Structures are given as C-alpha cells and as structure tokens.
C-alpha cells in the first residue's frame, strides 16, 4: 500500500491514510488496533471491496485500486478468502453450499479444487480438518450452527480452492479464549498447508505471539477525524 488515502462516501470527516504497508508472501500478520479504528476499512481496501481516492494498492503484482469494478470482483474471487467477525454464512444454504460458494465466482479456484478431486469431497475434507465431521455437516443447516462452528465453516470457505491471501476481520472475537486458540491453530495449519498469506485484524493483543509479525494500525496508518 502506497500513499493511500480513503474516505467513506457520505462520511467526509473520517479519512484513513496509509503511507506504506507491505506484507510478504506466506506471512501471518496480525493488525492490532482499537475498535472502530479503521482496521476493517484497511482490510476492505486490501480486498478491493472499496477503492481509495488516492494511492496504489499492489496485490500479487496488480494495482487493484486501478482495476475496474468487475475486474476487482473477479480478482477478489480468485485470490482472496475472507472471514468476517460474525454472520459469515448464508442462512438459507446448506453448510456444503456455503463452503462451495466462492467456486461459483472463481474459475481458478474451481480448477484448484478439481486437481484434488470432487468439490464436495474437498469441502468435507476442509471441514473435517477444521473440526466439523461429516456427520455434523449433514445434520445441520448453516443457520443452526453455533458461532464457533459457523466460524469454522467460514474458514473452510475462505480456504477452499487455495486462494493466495486469507483476510480475517476479528474472526475470533465472538469466541471464548479456549476456542479462540483452537480456531486460530486450525486456521494457521490450513493456511500454512495451502501456502497462503494470512492477514488478520484484532484488538486483542494477547494473540500477537501466535503470528509471525504484528503491526499496530497506528504505525502504518493515520486516521483523521475532521471537526
């Protein structure tokens, strides 16, 4: 990220500026910052969900800030796996359908899965690795899962088809400490196996020791709140 400047449409007072922020391939980066401090905005910029007014955001060699809308969406589908804080799943889909969702939008990830066999098998393999055995998957609809289980399904969705970058926005904040640890370990294991870069934001400093690098938001970005 170079000289990025971003203002939410309709909220001219809040401006996020990033002078320089870089993540190397394969890193596990924790982005720390207080709640409401612009961490999620930074992730939105990275994943190309929003575009900055100024500056460049270089991801895997492409400046996604310059890409037109549809191309950015395709880029995100191909290269990003995203996990939200909560409400990660489409309530009306089955668990497997939720996991397979990115494949509908990305050809490359479809192809990646195809080398490992059947998409449904890959989904259940990932879910099993993340601690959701097949017996539980068939029993429940996505909306009936506990929050912890939902987060695991979301992780499986983010990982399916081996995207290069996994972005997680406080995925553990709705889990208790024991579960947090367990979830993160599983996530690390799977991103490591896929060779993916993990960028996660949190306000919880105790998680820092688990990551290869920890960045404080205040060190890379300035937030201006105009009067």
């Amino acid at each position, binding site marked *: 990220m170079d000289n990025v400047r971003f203002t939410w449409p309709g909220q001219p007072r809040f401006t996020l500026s990033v002078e320089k922020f870089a993540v190397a391939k394969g890193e596990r980066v924790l982005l720390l910052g207080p709640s409401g401090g612009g961490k999620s905005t930074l992730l939105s910029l990275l*994943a190309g*969900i929003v575009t900055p007014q100024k500056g460049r955001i270089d991801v895997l060699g492409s400046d996604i800030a310059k890409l037109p809308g549809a191309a950015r969406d395709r880029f995100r*589908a*191909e290269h990003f796996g*995203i996990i*939200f804080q909560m409400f990660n799943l489409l309530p009306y*889909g089955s668990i497997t*359908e939720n996991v397979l969702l990115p494949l509908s939008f990305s050809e490359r990830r479809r192809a990646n899965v195809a080398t490992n066999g059947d998409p449904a098998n890959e989904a259940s393999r990932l879910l099993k690795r993340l601690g959701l055995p097949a017996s539980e998957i068939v029993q429940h609809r996505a909306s009936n899962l506990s929050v912890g289980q939902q987060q695991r399904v979301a992780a499986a969705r983010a990982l399916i088809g081996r995207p290069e970058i996994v972005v997680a926005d406080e995925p553990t904040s709705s889990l208790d400490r024991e579960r947090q640890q367990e979830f993160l370990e599983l996530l690390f294991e799977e991103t490591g196996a896929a060779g993916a870069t993990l960028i996660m934001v949190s306000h919880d400093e105790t998680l820092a020791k688990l990551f290869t690098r920890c960045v404080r938001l205040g060190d890379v970005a300035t937030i201006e709140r105009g009067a």
Partner: protein
Amino acid sequence: MIVFRLALQSLRARWLTALLSVLAIAFSVMLLLGVEKVRTGARQSFADTISGTDLIIGARSGGVQLLLYSVFRIGNATNNMTWQSYKDIAALPDVDWTVPMSLGDSHRGFRVLGTTDHFFKHYRFRGDQKLAFANGSAFSDIFDAVIGADVAAALDYKIGDKIVIGHGLGSVSFLDHGDKPFQVKGVLEKTGTPVDRTVHVSLGAIEAIHVDWQQGAPIPGQSVSAEDVRRMDLTPQSITAMLVGLKTRLAVFRVQRAVNDYAPEPLSAILPGAALQQLWGLVGVAETALAAVSAMVVVTALLGMVTMILTTLNERRREMAILRSVGASPATVLGLLATEAGVLTLAGAVLGTGLLYAGLAISRPWIDRVYGLNLPLAAPTSWELMTLCGIVAAGVLAGFGPAFLAYRRSLADGMTVRV
C-alpha cells in the same frame, strides 16, 4: 445460474412472507383478469340482448332512445305509431315477420309489454337462442299474462296467480286497472335480458284495460266490465314500436329508407346492432373505470412485494457482504434481488391465472343463471397474455428499487456490516 439458485434458496428460507406476496399478486392478477373477463362478458351479453331482429321501428327519435325504450324498457316513447303504419310496414314485400310492442303500463315496478305471441316466436337473444317457457305457455285468453323469470322470482308468482296492472310506470300506482285482473299463464326461463323483468300481455289486453279511460284517467261513471270488453273490437289504434325480421338481410337498408321516408307519419327504423354499439359507447366509461381500479390493485400488490423485499433488506445486508466478499459483483447482488422479485411476480401471475380459470370453471353456470352473464372459458386472449407479461416485467422492474439500494449499501458496508 448461481443468481437464480441463490434467489430460489433465499425465497425458500422466507417461504411464508414469499407465499403471502405471491398470494397478494395472485389475487390482484385474478381480479384484473376477472374484471376483464366480466367486462367482455358483459359487453357480449349486452350486445346479445337482442338478435335476429333486423330493424326496430318506432316514432321518429334517436336510435339510442328507441333502443332504450323498446328493448331495455328504459324511459318512454316520445310518441306512438299508428296501427295503420304497422300494417303498412308489415305488408312491405321484404318483410318476413313483425312483432308489435305496446308499452306504458307496469305491474309493481315491472314494465308491461303488450304484444302478440309472435314475440315468443321471433325474439332472439345471445346468438340465436329463443325464449323458452319454464312453466305454462303463451297467452291464449285476453287476460292472460306471461311473466319473465325475474318477475316470477321477485314477486313469487306461480301459474294461475291473479295480478292487477297499474297504470303508468311507477312502482306504486295510484291508478290501476283493478277492474280487469290478469292471470299468470306462463313463466319464461331466465335470459339475462330485459325480458326477465317484463310482464307480457296480449296487445288486445292493453286496449281492453284502457277502453273506459281517456287522457290517462278513468272516465267517471263509464266503466266497462271485463266480460263486456271481450265482445268489443280490441284492435289497437296505436302501438309503441315494432320489431321487424326481413326475408333477406340485404334488404335492411332498403326497408330502413322506406320507413324513414314513410309519408303518413314520421317514423324511425334502426339497426339494433348499430344502436347497441352506440349505447355501449355511453356505458363504456364505467368499464374503463373498472379496469383502472383493478390495474391499481395490481400496482398495490407489487408495492406490497417491494415492501416485503425492503423490510428484509437490512437483515440481508450481511448476506450481500458475504456474497461480495466471495467475489460476487454488484451486478450479481442487483440481479439476485431483481430475480427474487421476478420469481415472486411470475409465480403470482401464474397462480392468479390458474385461480381465475378454476373459479370461472366452478362458478360459470351459477353466474349465468343468476346474472344472465355468459362468461366463456376461453384461452387467455393476446391482450391478457400481454398484460401478464407486463405485470411480471413491472415486478422485476419494481425489484430493481430495493436491489439498487442493496447494491449501494453493499458498496458502503465494505467489510463490516453496520446494522
């Protein structure tokens, strides 16, 4: 296809509200098409009031007015025509049959028509249907009456009942022909025409009840009994109008011109079909209003659907954010909601049409019997199909409203959903 699948899944998850929206649209579609069916049915029934008659002749007046008083029993004749004129016209070489009509009296609000038994033979309605007797037969005695189906039903008359004809046309007559009561001889089948609301008596009977009257009132001290009147010559001096059937329809304009040029008295001859068209043009405004109202009902139903989609929009912002995060373009989000709206309206339109036809199939005989309205069970007309397509298109278009809102919000939400 993913859009279509997601739309169906999300609708299935909210099946109750979706079902209600579909029902609302279905009912409105049913109403719209139903009104259209009734409208065309009514128009047809109206045009079918009289058929097989080539000309209606009366004293000179406008075509619509002549039609109104002679066929619909509405309003009064401006003037009578003489019996001599009737005989002259009946004697024209092109004329096949004639039916004289004498109006002006009533029985408890129902018009009394003085005519001959030719009326029952030659009057046709709805294509080529003849009048039929539900009970009894045509009049044979001078004081016999044949009543229409509505008269029999409303006043609960049976064969053999005695009725008294009132003078004039009010529902309550202050002057009546109580000295000369009539006997119900026949009851006609329901026709859905003004015949149902008419008391038919012989032409001679109209003369008979008025022998001892002058200037619209009984002549004091000079009453002729019902028995005496039978021995008198009851050939009428004048009649109100006449129905004419021709040997060939080609002669219709020739006879019409002959009547209009008839020297002894000013007469008008009208073609019933043309006059009916003219009259329908007058009532057509109500028809348009009806169509407008049902169109508004459809708009209301579509608004209801949009409201339903809008109310679920907030909880669905997460869904939109998820879709965006896995790479769905804003167009997909837009398409998803528009597709949902389209599926709902399509289902509503299909269901509504189905319900209408089912309802028609069941209630058709009843409607025909009670209202005399013949609603044919025909395939949807091209107009109806066009309307259905229009409604679905409008539904999709209406869905674009919330869809666009969702799209805008999904852009503004970014990664976090601020609910």
